[in-house]
């Protein structure tokens, strides 16, 4: 059982005459499209904009923390900076990042369908995203909001005089965009699979999106309810969270984290799907333990709903409920470990090449492992007392969300870029960007673990001078990281015009999306495909390629 795959000669590749990009012209054809690929592009542009907006806030935060004194911005401004950084990065970037762009683009093709199950709802989800974003931008332009991304009561309901309602409304609306995306994926994966595409022939990308979609559909409504309660509490004072009216401020924490803990899995699971595809493709090898990886996604989604109170270990929940939630937290760490080891085992006896997506995937594995293991620190009850609400937790979730998820997102965008645009990104430039990002990331966030154990609280505008050295390191790293993110911003648009023509399958990958032209036709497939082999079947691909060569020659 061995496979030799020779990469196709890219000199001979031509751009197809007709594709989804040139089937219709004009702004209207984009803004009223039902094509999942065009909607994915709309999402790609919007979330890239908000990523750089959120990144700019992060830059200002790091610049302020260069010195222990509160000297660059006022306290209120600083509070608005980290609030807007969190809100934008989480609700407008991380949650839609992989699902709404890469997922939207490739899931229908992967399952062999012409489009998602509900194309108009898909478009509606983008409009809701934009509407939610408009509310947040409005709040931002009119002075911002300073609740922290968690909207903690009673601070957000009684003690702040900023645009809390506008911002909450924005998040509320953007939440529906996420629900619609999830709904579309669930129905598509259930009902739109092509003949022969059984559940266990689905690419792992689909499995992880399926798991994330369930979380989106079941979790996000709880966030919506919570935000409505916050808005009602703020406007008419219904007193659900207000202790002086018999309400319970801890109830808000329970409701909020009931969504917001699964939300981290909404963010990370699609990224894990990307990593499975990338690792398999660049090892030319089936993912080791396909079923284990598939079910670990489902396990993460299921356990993910029952760990929310681990955000509240120091908040006076009963000691025994803390025990239960700590135990479940340990259990949810296991499927993540299973995935990491399976990916590592996939490399064994492969035929590895190190294109940019693979470098990002390696970055993901390293940083996500650190992020996951430090999660065990925080899930351990006693340790959490000292570490929670410090920079340790900031470093932890940035390792998972930025080190993990953002790396996976960039891996995915680079990996499917030839499919989306028909052209290759510049390889050596992007490899440089991947390495820069990795180094910058470590330099930015590793010192934060140390300063966190020293006790530096998060969301501090000023800090004791003995923490300065570590903060300077962190800010220096953020600069490198910023350069790492700006590079793709420059060479990706460049490649649209000057990149090499990719051809239909530049990576010799096995997914259905690679068996059609790049960029694809609006209807994806000329004939309905029939799946007659397992996922990641490189022998089938080698045989097919050989067959094609003989028919052409």
């Amino acid at each position, binding site marked *: 059982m*061995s496979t030799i795959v020779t990469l196709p000669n890219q000199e001979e590749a031509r751009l197809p005459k007709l594709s989804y990009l040139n089937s219709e012209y004009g702004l209207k054809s984009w803004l009223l499209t039902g094509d999942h690929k065009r909607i994915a592009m709309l999402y790609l542009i919007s979330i890239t904009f908000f990523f750089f907006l959120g990144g700019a806030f992060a830059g200002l935060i790091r610049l302020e923390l260069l010195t222990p004194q509160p000297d660059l911005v006022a*306290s209120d401004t600083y509070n608005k900076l980290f609030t807007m950084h969190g809100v934008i990065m989480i609700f407008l970037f991380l949650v839609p990042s992989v699902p709404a762009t890469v997922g939207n683009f490739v899931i229908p093709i992967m399952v062999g369908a012409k489009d998602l199950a509900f194309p108009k709802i898909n478009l509606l989800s983008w409009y809701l995203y934009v509407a939610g974003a408009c509310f947040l931008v409005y709040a931002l332009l009119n002075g911002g909001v300073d609740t*922290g991304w968690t909207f903690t009561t009673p*601070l957000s309901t*009684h003690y702040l005089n900023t645009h809390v309602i506008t911002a909450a409304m924005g998040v509320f609306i953007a939440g529906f965009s996420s629900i619609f995306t999830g709904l579309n994926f669930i129905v598509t994966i259930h009902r739109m699979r092509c003949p022969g595409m059984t559940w266990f022939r689905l690419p792992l990308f689909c499995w992880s999106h399926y798991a994330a979609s369930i979380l989106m559909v079941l979790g996000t409504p709880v966030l919506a309810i919570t935000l409505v309660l916050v808005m009602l509490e703020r406007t008419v004072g219904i007193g659900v969270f207000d*202790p*002086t009216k*018999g309400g319970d*401020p801890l109830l808000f924490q329970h409701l909020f984290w009931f969504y917001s803990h699964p939300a981290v899995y909404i963010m990370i699971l699609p990224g894990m799907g990307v990593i499975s595809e990338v690792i398999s493709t660049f*090892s030319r*090898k*089936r993912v080791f333990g396909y*079923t284990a990886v598939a079910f670990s996604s489902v396990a993460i989604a299921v356990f993910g709903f029952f760990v929310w109170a681990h955000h509240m*270990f*120091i*908040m*006076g929940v009963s*000691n025994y409920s803390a025990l239960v939630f*700590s*135990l479940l937290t*340990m*259990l949810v760490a*296991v499927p993540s470990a299973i995935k990491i*080891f*399976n990916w*590592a085992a996939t*490399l*064994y*006896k*492969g*035929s*590895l*090449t*190190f294109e940019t997506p693979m470098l990002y995937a*390696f970055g993901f*594995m*390293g940083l996500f*492992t*650190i992020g996951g*293991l430090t999660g*065990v*620190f925080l899930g*351990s*009850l*006693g340790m959490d*007392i*000292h570490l*929670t*609400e*410090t920079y340790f937790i900031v470093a932890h979730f940035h390792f998972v969300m930025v080190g993990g998820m953002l790396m996976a997102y960039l891996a995915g965008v680079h990996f499917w870029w030839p499919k989306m645009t028909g052209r290759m990104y510049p390889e050596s430039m992007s490899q440089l960007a991947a390495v820069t990002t990795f180094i910058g990331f470590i330099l930015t966030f590793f010192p934060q673990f*140390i300063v966190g*154990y*020293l*006790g530096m609280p*998060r*969301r*501090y*505008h*000023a*800090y004791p001078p003995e923490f300065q050295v570590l903060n300077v390191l962190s800010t220096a790293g953020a600069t490198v990281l910023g350069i790492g993110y700006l590079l793709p911003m420059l060479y990706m648009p460049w490649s649209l015009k000057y990149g090499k023509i990719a051809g239909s399958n530049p990576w010799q990958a096995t997914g259905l999306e690679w068996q059609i032209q790049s960029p694809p036709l609006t209807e994806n497939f000329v004939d309905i495909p029939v799946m007659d082999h397992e996922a990641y079947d490189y022998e089938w691909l080698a045989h097919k390629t050989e067959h094609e060569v003989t028919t052409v020659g």
Partner: protein
Amino acid sequence: MHISPVLWQFLVHWLTNSALFPPEASAISPYMDAFYFFLCAISAVGLIAVAILVFGFSILYRKEKSPVATQIEGSTLLEATWTIIPLALFMICFVWGALLYFRIYNPPTNAMNIYIVGKQWMWKAEHPGGQHEIDSLHIPINRPVQLTMISQDVFHSFSIPAFRVKREVIPGRYSTVWFEATATGTYHLFCTQYCGTDHSAMIGEVVAMTPDDYQKWAAGSTSGASLAQNGERLFASLGCNSCHSGEATARGPNLSQVYGSRLQLADGSTVTANDAFLREAILNPSTHVMQGYAPIMPTYQGQVSEEGLIDLVEYIKNLNSNYRIQQTLTTSQLAPGQAGASSSGTPQVNGPARAGRTAPSVPGTVNQ
């Protein structure tokens, strides 16, 4: 593997004195740090394992060396291995962490009690003897100290990194934390829960002093009236004693033995009268009616400040003779022979411990 004790001592000393590690200043700190090193160790092992696999395979099976990929389906044995080993390690972490948690959040019975009120953006500490402090906390070393904390407005969080303790300070309910300082010195006190504009200025210092010095400080900083005495005055001025007079014909229950006892409520349930219950019973009396009494007590919501409530709770505690005896005992444990020597002493605080401001005390603040 054997590490010489001298080397171990040296390592611990080097680490605890480096700028990259917080000082160990409480009884719990060595336990927390030991657990931290264990977690760091298993993380390092896990990370190194992944790194060896990724880099090793990358070198061994790069395309130049391995042009042909061998397709492998998977291995149940390997899946089981990397399910069970991490699970076992995580279970060790769970048990270890749980033991530590219960140790930190279950105070010993002989702890001395200090009340903390958090508000935007300051910490008020109230010692039972009537010492009031703002943004500082003076405590004796080698003595368990329990903090009973409440917030007047939003969520705050009381954190002393050198003691490795932290607990959320919540509006509308008491939360507690305890520690036993082991080394004198001045340590950081942070509010770690984001609480609005001046969150990062809601800091202070914890001054750990020898028991003698603490006794001197306490004698010199007292406002002249203990919390219980303030509470007694407040009890009278709010008219509580008209019903809770302690007489057999009184309309309200006798409070003298109430603290710490099991109470039978009118709705049939029983509760233990602790600090939280007493506070609730003052603010929401209609939901905590004692059996055999009419629900006639009006609410005092909005009429008594959190400090006033603490005074009242402390007063009711002191009506309980057992409690009073216990407090006397713990006080005499603290400084034998020191009790009378305080009145002539100047309010001098030892060494670097001096900087905390002492709040002017307002006995039994009543709003309106």
